[in-house]
């Protein structure tokens, strides 16, 4: 085997035992080994691959956003999608949110419902309805007293704690206070569901329930409830109901001394003048009153 082949095989680390012997016997074997060993000292600088990788990655990361629109569309896309989702859910949430309208003591307000219908709220009342679902179901929840003018359309329900009023016609008054539930129909036809029993009221009919007892009432002949004209009217009504209404209209509290609050009262009081109103409810029963701040003390004469 000639010298050149042996050296080539040595260079390529490809010598077998026999060839290695032959290679060692070459006259310039020592020179070759010395050269080879000496060359090792010219080894390249240490190359720390993980460190260099970190370096290159820290350089390219800021480039990423600008340089690779095509492949990195996913992240920005997700951001936009997230924003849209939030906007949409906010929109959805706010539009499907119930609308609450409350009145405080001595306050009345008119509520225009989504269609031509409207409701007038008496003092200290709460009305809740939903704009979004109005087209499908005209439901309002009521806690207190309100007068409704209902536009033609699908059935109109007034849901109260005491019972549900379904409207077939147009104008009616619902009064729901503690232990007190009264519906008066002024025009058209109204259905009152109380204890899952429906009573239909024609114009002038009324439904009254105090402390769970249904009380018959004579025909109503006024066209609208009296409170719309800033007046509360009572016919054979327990005196405590009268006082409760008075408290709501004037924001005061009564303190009774020796007075039977179950006795029946017929009469009315105005919402505009507390002195006249007080006289209206005390004189017929021969009571006297004295005012201290927001408390009114009633006494038998």
């Amino acid at each position, binding site marked *: 085997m000639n010298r*050149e082949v042996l*050296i*080539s095989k040595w*260079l*390529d*680390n*490809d010598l077998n035992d026999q060839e290695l012997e032959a290679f060692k016997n070459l006259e*310039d074997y020592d*020179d*070759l080994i*010395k*050269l*080879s060993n*000496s*060359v*090792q*000292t*010219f*080894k*390249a*600088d240490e*190359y720390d*691959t993980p460190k*260099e*990788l970190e*370096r*290159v*990655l820290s*350089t*390219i990361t800021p*480039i990423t956003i600008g*340089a*690779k629109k*095509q*492949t*990195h569309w996913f992240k920005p896309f997700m951001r936009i999608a997230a924003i849209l989702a939030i906007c949409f859910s906010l929109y959805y949430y706010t539009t499907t949110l119930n609308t609450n309208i409350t009145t405080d003591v001595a306050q009345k307000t008119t509520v225009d419902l989504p269609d031509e219908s409207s409701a007038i709220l008496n003092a200290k009342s709460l009305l809740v309805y939903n704009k979004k679902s109005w087209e499908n179901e005209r439901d309002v929840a009521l806690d207190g007293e309100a007068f409704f003018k209902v536009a033609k359309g699908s059935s109109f329900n007034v849901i109260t704690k005491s019972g549900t009023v379904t409207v077939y016609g147009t104008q009616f008054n619902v009064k729901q206070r503690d232990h007190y539930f009264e519906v008066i129909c002024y025009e058209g036809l109204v259905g009152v569901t109380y204890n899952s029993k429906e009573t239909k009221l024609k114009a002038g009919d009324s439904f009254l329930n105090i402390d769970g007892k249904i009380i018959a009432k004579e025909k109503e002949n006024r066209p609208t409830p009296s409170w719309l004209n800033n007046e509360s009217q009572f016919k054979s009504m327990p005196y405590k109901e009268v006082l409760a209404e008075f408290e709501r209209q004037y924001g005061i509290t009564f303190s009774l001394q020796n007075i039977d609050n179950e006795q029946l009262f017929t009469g009315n009081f105005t919402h505009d003048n507390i002195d006249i109103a007080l006289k209206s409810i005390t004189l017929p029963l021969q009571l006297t009153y004295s005012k201290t701040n927001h408390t009114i003390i009633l006494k038998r004469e």
Partner: protein
Amino acid sequence: MAQSTTKMTKQLQEHICEERLFSSIFNKYSKDLHNFLYYKYGELLNPKDKVQEAFVKLWENCAKISSDKAKSFVFTTANNLMLNEVAHQKVVLKHQQTKPKLYTNESPEFLMQETEYMDKLQKALSNLTDAQREAFMMNRVEGKRFKEIADILDISTKAVEKRIYGALEKLRRDIKEL
């Protein structure tokens, strides 16, 4: 089998812009590239920085380059970067390395001979062509076999053998003459 291989390479091609694949390419080739540049151009031209630059360029063009072309891309890019600088600065290349002190017990005369030998070797290495030097150093210092070097340089095994053998002969001639 062939089908699944093509499918796999296709997948690789599609995701070269992904950091994970990019890192694996870096881990696979960057050291060879660095050593190649070092032996070819010496340390003065910052082979490490050229490796960095080449891989940054690879990243910037990742959408256009398939993973099987990545290796030749970074090698060509880094080589061009080096050539630009060589043309620019006309730097004389040197392989400089502090020698390990292996011969402390030797006589001063011997030490002097050794130093002389190393100086000659250094000069002789500088006299090799770039092609000879890069192949010879990868073989002798990095212990790479002809086939591996052929893969790195994209040339035939025979050509590698020719370069290395030629380099060896030239070195020995130069050392004798100097």
